[in-house]
Every structure is written in C-alpha cells, then in structure tokens.
C-alpha cells in the first residue's frame, strides 16, 4: 500500500517535472530569441565580480524596469566568446590587450574604450601562514608552493612583469626562482584566491581587489611596493552590436560617476 502510494507520488512529481522542464525550455528560447527590452548585458573581467554586482544593483534601483545581467570570466575568455558571436552591450576588460584585440576584430569602435578603474597586484598568503611568507623575497624560498594565474590571463601577465621588475632590483635569478615554485597556473584570478584560501598553496599573486570582505578573514596580504607593482588599467566600452545602446550609455555614465567610482574604491580598486 505504502509502495503504491509512493509510486503515485513519484509519478505525479515526475510528470510535473517534465512539464516544468518543457516550460523552462520555452522560456529560455523566448529569451534567446528576443532579449528583454530593458536587459543590459555586461561582459566583465572576473576581478570585477563583486564591485560590478553592487554597481549593477544600484543602477537597477535608479532605472526602474531595467535589468543588468553580468557574465564574469577571464577577459581573454570574454573576448573569445564575443568573437564567436556571443551578444552583449558592454565589455569591461582587465587589460588593454584584450580590448585592443576586440577593436581588431571589429567588436568595438577604436576610440570608444575608456579606463574606468585601476587595480594593483598584491601577494596573498593563507591567514595562518604556516609557510611563514612575510616578505617578497620569501617567495623565492625553495619548496614553497605558489599558485599564479596563467600567462594568458591579464593578472598572470601583470604578475610576470612585476616579477621581472623585482629581478632587476634583487637578483637576476629572482623571477625564475619564484617561477620554479609555481605548482599551478590557474585560468582565472578567483581560482588563485580559492587555492590560497583553502591553504593548498602557500602564496599567490592577485589583485588587491580580490581580497574582498568575504575572503579577507582567511587571507593576509603582502604589499608589493610601487616600484615593482604593475598598475592594471581596466578599459570598458559599448559594443558595436549592442542592442541597448541608450541604457548602455547610461551604465557607462553611472560607472564613471562619483557614486560609481566610490563603489569601485570600496571593493579595493583605485580610481583613475
């Protein structure tokens, strides 16, 4: 008796799930076919995740009926996605290289990009810091496990530049010694943070903006002095193929406004 009842419930549940799935499918195709009149799609570097989410929420509050949808990933991935036909209204890159590449492929008008925020590098270590990394020169200590972003990711190439500058100041082999301690080259900066946060890596090099309130209590930061640091300038622009150019222009304005810039500053960025 119990089994039969159970069966019936299962069947009801199952039929309902199938209907819901079909309905979902319809909705998705409807969305894909004609994107909502007031939805702004922003492709942004993953380091911008927290700051832009807050900016987006404020923008929505100021523009009733408007919705901001984000796609966060490595800038190089976003550029690839756009080149392969993904549609978006605004592209925010973590470096000029990917923005230039987007201009090259005709996605963005040549003089459209504007630098809206700057970021700098910092060394992060787990809060308990069992490996005892306290200075930059500790990074060259043999046996240390360091995780970096892959050289194809903007933060990864900035990191290599910074290490090269340290080599000039400390010791010609500094950079190569540090690199010999690298155990993994991650595909985006948030993965570097995660691996240091979990204590699996002894140190990582990320943006100062990656030490967010959510991660700050599990990480310690070692500052990289200006002479070695690489200042990352983030350009953003509306895409030529944008379907929401008016709303997109408003969003660009808002990010550059005093209110927008103060949110970016709050999340560890410096403003241009």
């Amino acid at each position, binding site marked *: 008796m119990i089994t039969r009842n159970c069966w019936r419930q299962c069947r009801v549940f199952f039929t309902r799930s199938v209907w819901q799935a079909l309905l979902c499918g319809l909705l998705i195709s409807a969305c894909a076919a004609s994107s909502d009149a007031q939805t702004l799609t922003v492709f942004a570097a993953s380091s911008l995740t927290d700051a832009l989410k807050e900016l987006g929420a404020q923008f929505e509050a100021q523009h009733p009926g408007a919705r901001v949808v984000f796609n966060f990933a490595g800038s190089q991935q976003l550029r690839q996605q756009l080149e392969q036909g993904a549609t978006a209204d605004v592209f925010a890159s973590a470096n000029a290289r990917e923005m230039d590449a987007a201009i090259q492929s005709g996605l963005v008008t040549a003089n459209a990009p504007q630098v809206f925020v700057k970021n700098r590098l910092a060394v992060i270590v787990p809060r308990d810091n069992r490996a005892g990394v306290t200075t930059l020169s500790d990074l060259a200590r043999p046996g240390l496990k360091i995780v970096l972003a*892959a050289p*194809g*990711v903007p933060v990864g190439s900035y990191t290599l530049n910074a290490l090269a500058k340290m080599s000039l100041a400390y010791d010609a082999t500094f950079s190569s010694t540090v690199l010999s301690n*690298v155990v*993994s*080259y991650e595909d985006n900066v948030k993965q570097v943070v995660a691996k240091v946060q*979990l*204590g*699996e890596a002894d140190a990582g090099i990320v943006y100062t903006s990656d030490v967010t309130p959510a991660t700050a209590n599990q990480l310690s930061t070692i500052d990289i002095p200006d002479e070695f640091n690489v200042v990352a300038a983030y350009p953003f622009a509306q895409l030529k193929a944008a379907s929401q150019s008016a709303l997109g222009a408003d969003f660009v304005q808002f990010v550059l406004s005093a209110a927008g810039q103060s949110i970016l500053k709050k999340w560890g960025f410096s403003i241009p």
Partner: protein
Amino acid sequence: MIRSRLGQAAIFIASSVLLLFLVLPLFVLLVRAIEADLLQQLTQPTVAQALRLSLQTSILSTLITVTLGTPLAYSLARRKVPARSAIETLLDLPIVLPPAVAGLALLLTFGRRGFFGPVLETLGLSLPFTTAAVVMAGIFVSAPFFIRSAQTGFASVSHHVEESASDLGANPWQVFQHVTLPLAGPALLSGAILSWARALGEFGATILFAGSFIGRTQTMPLAIYQALETDLGSAMAVAAILILISFFFLVLLRLITHGRIGHPLL
C-alpha cells in the same frame, strides 16, 4: 494510412533533428581542426605533453580501478553483502555529481589542510598539484563505470558452470581464474574501456584538485580550456584528437560487447 505516414514523418524528423544536433558540432570541430593544420599542431610541445600526460594518467587510473574494482564487483555480484543497495547507490554517486563537487571533496579530504592532511604531512606526502592527484581524480569519477559493468558481468555467469567445474575438482581460485573470469571477460573489458574514456575526458575534478601545470597536471581537457584563451588552433587540435581517440575506443567497445572480440569460451 495518412496518419501512419504522418507519424512516420514525425518520427523521422524528430530523430534526425536530435541526431544532427549531437553529431554535427563534433563534425564541424573536426573539419575546423583539420583546416587549422591539425598535424602541425600535434608537434607543439604543449599539445604533445598534454597528450602524453593524459594517456599516462588515464591508463594508470584504469589499471588501479580494475585491480581494486574487480574484487569489489565480484563481491557485490556473488557474496551476501550487507546493505548492498546502499553501497550500489553510493558507488553511482560520482557518475551523477558534477566533477567540480568531486574535486572539492578530494581537496577537502586529501588536501594539505584536508581530512588526511596531517597524516600525509607526517609521511612527507603532498598530493594536490601532483600527477598523482590527476590519477586520483580520474579514479574517483571513472571507477563506478567499471564496477557497474563488471558486476553485471559476474552476475551473468551461471552458477551451474562454476559448480560443474568445482565438482570436477577445481579449487575456488581455479574456478574463478578459468571459468568465471573468462566468461565475465567481455563485460570487464568493456567496463575498463568506458572508465578509461571517462578518465581521459576528466576536467572539473582535475582542475580543482590537481591544478594546471604543463607536463605535470595539465591533461588534454585542461589544455583545451587554457588554449581556448590564447590559441584557438591548438585548442581545436587537442579537442579533435580527443574526439578521434574516444571514437576509436567506443568502436572497440561495440565490437567487444557484440562478441566479435574476446568471445566467451562457452
């Protein structure tokens, strides 16, 4: 008549739409990869290293799976195992879980700060970011495929044949070695190929637990992902190789399960 013809048309259209959807993208990828000079890409060191590492780690993880999985599958098929269905359900979990969950679970268990972290540390071992971690991730996600198939294989061997053998004076080990194992052989082999193919395609658990380092932990799927960001050509080349290798072994699998290779003794 018309209705049945309509019905047949509907069936034909529905089937070809799905078939095209499943096959066409892989075909397009292959063509694009060949256009992008597939053979020349193969000689690139990153591609060659990823290929070698992938083959080594997936073969090793399959060997370990078969060695440890055969006794387990045999017990599940033949012995009175307490809570058998609970064990079987748990064994199926890695098949349905997103690999990222597997990777996180492995990290929290075998990582430096994980469950076994202190024990491993006293032994001087550190697993994350090593080739061993790639093999472990492979075993974790692929072993269930082998165990399932081997268990079915053992269960299908008739008791009577085994009993006859032991009536003729064979000891239990001889019965297993000369009767049970050959009869279940095709199922074991097809299970091993399936689980090997799964280990070869493993991505999520590997990138979390083993990270990505050329020649050490960067397997083909990881190389595809990383190359996608800088060099579409080599990403397509590695992807095309994966498709070809997997296709070859799936064909082999069909031949085995249809009894054309390694046909049973009886």
